[in-house]
């Protein structure tokens, strides 16, 4: 029997294969990342005009606007990523492969995360320019990483479910936002803390929460994923 004390090399190879497949497919067309990016910019613009704030107030909403943008763009990416799998029959192929189902989960999770981070990397400088704030602080980048991990961990699982329903794309945000609420909240809190140069002790609490959430939900999602994709 398999030695479950360490992930077998085969397991890891399977994950990497899935990630590599997704990344290669994406870089050929760039359709996913480009649509997420354009969408993010539009959202930021809308917030810019809708909120019409003076410079000082803008600073205080930066964290919120940023995470709202990431949440919406993230949903887009998750939906597309899973729909592509289903529509092209890739998912069936993956399921037939002699690979642990949780490897599929980790593979999709990592590639979804990669796309989301890529989009965020492009959004940050644009936001910095538009709002005249420097967003490239290490603390903030850490929060963005942790938040994206948590969001994508749950999102990948829920997208796998929603793509199998009649209502499909529309359902994912409905399922995801309430469950991911605490990630977004903690992320906004922590981001805001770093941007306003708060005491580190204040920021530690939301960061701990983010880490806890990431751990808990990656564990739960990976255990439950294969129930969700079985035929």
């Amino acid at each position, binding site marked *: 029997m398999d030695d479950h004390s360490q992930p077998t090399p085969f397991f890891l190879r399977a994950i990497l294969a899935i990630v590599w497949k997704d990344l290669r497919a994406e870089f050929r067309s760039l359709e996913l990342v480009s649509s997420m990016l354009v969408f993010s910019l539009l959202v930021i613009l809308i917030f810019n005009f809708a909120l019409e704030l003076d410079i000082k107030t803008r600073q205080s909403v930066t964290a919120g606007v940023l995470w709202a943008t990431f949440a919406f763009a993230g949903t887009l990416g998750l939906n597309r990523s899973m729909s592509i799998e289903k529509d092209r029959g890739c998912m069936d192929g993956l399921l037939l492969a002699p690979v642990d189902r949780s490897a599929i989960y980790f593979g999709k999770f990592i590639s979804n995360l990669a796309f989301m981070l890529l989009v965020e990397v492009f959004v940050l400088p644009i936001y910095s320019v538009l709002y005249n704030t420097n967003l490239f602080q290490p603390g903030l980048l850490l929060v963005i990483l942790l938040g994206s991990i948590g969001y994508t961990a749950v999102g990948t699982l829920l997208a796998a479910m*929603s793509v199998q*329903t009649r209502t499909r794309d529309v359902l994912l945000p*409905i*399922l995801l936002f*309430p*469950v991911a609420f*605490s990630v977004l909240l903690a992320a906004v809190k922590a981001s805001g803390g770093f941007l306003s140069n708060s005491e580190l002790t204040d920021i530690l609490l939301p960061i701990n929460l983010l880490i*806890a959430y990431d751990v808990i939900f990656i564990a739960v999602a990976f255990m439950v994923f294969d129930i969700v994709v079985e035929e």
Partner: protein
Amino acid sequence: MRPKPMTLKILDVISILVLGIAAYLALVVAPTELVMGDVQRVFYFHVGTAWTALLGFIFSAVLSVIYLVTKDLKWDRIQVAAIEVSLVFFFITIVLGSIWARPAWNTWWTWDPRLTTATITELIYIAYFMLRQGIDDPDRRARFGAVYALLGGISAPITFFAIRLFRTIHPVVIGGSNVNAEGGFSMTADMLGVFFFALFAFTVIFIDLFWNRIRLGDLQEQVEQLKLKVAG
């Protein structure tokens, strides 16, 4: 269709009685609170419904696990019943909370921790039903429902602790005589009596509605089976 068991019929009657007594106690017998006035009386129903609904949600997460292990659709039907009744009760909680907030804190709504968590939790379980509605295959519907209820059940307490990062203006009533939280009050002995009776009453009512709802689910299942048989 099995006729309604006698126990359930009795329970129906008891539920109505107990509801009436609780209302009477809350509206007439309990003393008027000094600072807030009569609106405080909604508190008895507010906590009664909150308490049972939250237990219902936790129970439904447990049911998820049971279903996923046993694969017996009976547990799925029980879960649907639990979540549906809890959803209704929790809705009452939220509305009563808002009504209480208005004269106490001078606002219909406030994004304070408990209210926010309550809304998010309610949305999770509404999403549960929307998820189920989009699936035709009963086995898949049950599986996905169970997974989502489990996720929701885990995330709800996390959400609560997350929002506790902020100061709350929600009254900490059981904390006793600390009236520093605005809108808080300490309960006198007779209020306590009414309070516990209301908790008991809503537990009884919840069980009654829950049982009835399970039977409805069973009936639905029988009808579905018969439909398949007749059409086939």
